[in-house]
């Protein structure tokens, strides 16, 4: 497999996953806002921090009012985190490798991009937003299923899975962060009764509610939810699960030692965490730490397998030789 094609498949999968999870992220915040008392509503600002692009946002937008944030997260193609941007790049990457992926998969990715653009009016209305985001999630899931049902289990598929799982782990951590972003809420007695409702909505946004009930056989409790979403060995959107998928994938590739070492580092961090003892601010720092580890995995893959990393490596070798 060409190093450039491997890289493109990996990014195609990452952007697809990012679009889907951005839709989930917006849904979880929308639900939170509806559930908690009106006077304490903190609105949409935390989402900008969760995407890690506050400076970028403030350059172009002047308030954190709902419509503006929605524009930034859904329709603004120039926003690095918007659904429109992710789908555009998913399509562009898919177009570059349309000779490699099944034709139907390309058609679906292409059609999803058209849908997302054509239906923007619906997306920007309060009433249409939920169904729009759901459609994006559903169609993304269709594409994942289509690939899983039609693609040879070769290196190309390994890179698709690596990209998907890395992005999914990262985005799951950000979705959990939506809840912990808001430190005030914990200290306010007034909001205690709503705490569980909020965690329930986090679960639902990850389609994790039923699975949580089945797996944990427990009521909704912060410690259990966090444990489930970080450390479940069974739930496919939990961070540990995603990292373990990558652990398995990478061993199907040649010269995987460096990447595997990075993956094991992230895995130890997740498994070793005493999550029940973390308060919100510790949880937030822990999430930051995980995101750094995930980025290290990306760097290792890039250096070993991707074209940009390879050409750079070759130049370094030549310099040393001369």
């Amino acid at each position, binding site marked *: 497999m060409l190093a450039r094609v491997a890289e493109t498949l990996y990014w195609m999968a990452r952007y697809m996953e990012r679009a889907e999870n951005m839709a989930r992220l917006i849904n979880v915040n929308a639900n939170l806002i509806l559930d908690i008392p009106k006077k304490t509503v903190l609105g949409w600002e935390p989402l900008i921090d969760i995407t890690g692009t506050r400076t970028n946002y403030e350059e172009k937008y002047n308030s954190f009012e709902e419509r503006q944030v929605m524009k930034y997260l859904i329709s603004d193609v120039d926003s690095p985190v918007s659904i429109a941007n992710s789908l555009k790049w998913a399509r562009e990457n898919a177009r570059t490798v349309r*000779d490699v992926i099944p034709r139907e998969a390309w058609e679906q990715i292409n059609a999803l991009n058209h849908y997302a653009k054509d239906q923007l009016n619906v997306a920007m209305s309060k009433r249409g937003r939920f169904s729009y985001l759901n459609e994006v999630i559903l169609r993304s899931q269709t594409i994942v299923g289509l690939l899983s049902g039609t693609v040879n289990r070769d290196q190309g598929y390994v890179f698709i899975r690596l990209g998907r799982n890395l992005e999914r782990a990262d985005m799951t951590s950000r979705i959990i962060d939506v809840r912990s972003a808001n430190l005030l809420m914990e200290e306010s007695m007034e909001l205690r009764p709503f705490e569980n409702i909020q965690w329930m909505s986090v679960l639902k946004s990850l389609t994790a509610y039923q699975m949580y009930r089945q797996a944990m056989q427990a009521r909704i409790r912060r410690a259990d939810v966090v444990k489930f979403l970080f450390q479940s060995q069974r739930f496919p959107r939990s961070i540990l699960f995603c990292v373990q998928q990558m652990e398995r994938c990478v061993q199907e590739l040649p010269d995987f030692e460096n990447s595997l070492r990075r993956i094991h580092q992230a895995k130890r961090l997740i498994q070793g965490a005493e999550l029940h003892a973390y308060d919100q601010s510790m949880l937030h720092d822990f999430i930051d730490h995980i995101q750094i580890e995930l980025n290290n995995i990306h760097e290792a893959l890039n250096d070993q397998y991707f074209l940009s990393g390879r050409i750079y490596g070759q130049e370094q070798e030549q310099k040393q030789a001369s």
Partner: protein
Amino acid sequence: MSVSWNEYDPGKFFDELIKPKGKPRKYAKNLAKYLADHSDEELETRKAVAELSIKEMGITFTVYTEEEGSIDRSWPFDILPRMIPKSEWLQIELGLKQRVKALNLFINDIYHDQKIIKDKVFPAELLANSVNFRKECMGVSPPLNIWAHICGSDLVRDSDGTMYVLEDNLRVPSGVSYMLENRSVMKRVFPELFESYNIQPVDDYCSQLFDMLASLSPRPADYPEVVVLTPGIFNSAYFEHSYLAQQMGCELVEGRDLLVQDDDCVYMRTVEGLQRVDVIYRRIDDLFLDPEAFNPDSMLGVPGLLRAWKKGNVALANAPGAGVADDKVVYAFVPEIIKYYLGEEVLLPNVPTYRCMFQDEQDYVLQHLDELVVKPANESGGYGMMIGPMASKKEREKFAQLIKKDPRNYIAQPTLGLSTVPTFVEHGVEPRHVDLRPFILSGDTTSVTMGGLTRVALRKGSLVVNSSQGGGSKDTWIVEEEA
């Protein structure tokens, strides 16, 4: 209301489907009846199906604009097919094979002994001035002595019904993927018509292309490594490059994926490391292929590629330098070239062509600028030409100066009355002008596509069929006449 053929009027032009007074040609009867029997709404629905298929299948071409940069546009397609009876097509096919065979002999001669020049059949000064002649290729013998493995020749039909060759594209001819995709769209749009006609299939092109490319491999192996080399996603034909790679099951590579090592072999950078490449179907122009040999600024090419090719370690299709026979002045000599190498009369005629390098022909051209089409020798896509009857006096004077300044660079041809085909327009069906580009593959055997890509000028009265300038395309049906 539905299509009423009584009102259909192609005027003085030859129409491919309908004879004067709205009578369909024999092979077009079923189609004409079908269209007359269906309502406008029904046909509109079919058209919408076609457009949606094209959008969802992502059949695109890329255009550049100042404001928006490169954009990926849906392929403009007309749902009414163009038909050619099979008996006529078989004659055309013979003519195309003859032509490409002679052109390959010509190119090989030019890069070796140049007998045709020594025998004074072809003027030496033409070669000296040719922009597509590559001195770097002198003495090289590519596999099977074939240089132009893939040729796309443009055919047009004049008002009297004669089919002419307008030009041969021997560098990197494009369009074949649209020919194949047009067919698959038509099968979705008019499945019932396929039941009432014996339409020759076109689907085997990609496997023929692969077999031809594989036959060029320098290493005897069951599975030679064949790749398609593209300039990248911003090239207007990227869709086609990727389509052909997909259909052949080959890697689609860019220049940066390849490198030539000290052993003068070509390798691609894979996840496992370097892997040897045997055959490159290159869709990059000669001058960008290898910055070491040609344009040193090329970011698209592979340093050392020409060296590897000359050593015989990799096959390139088409071979560098094959374009020497693709220039419009050489075109004017094709009848002589066929006679010289094959001892045969030309089967498929050239459009009568005046060569401005010869004084008597130049005089004729300058006196008849208002009737002729003047073309520069090495432009494609319809750029830099003058259509005499439509040009202003000022424009004609400008071209007269250009011709006198650089006579070798210009040819002139009579304005042809390009044939028409019924085409769906905003209000019903009207005649629009078409051409036809069949593709000829030359390896250990020679094969011609069944039909080719029919391009149509969608603007009323326009003769320009290029997709970059308001052209579209149609499916082309080679049909048994009994149908």
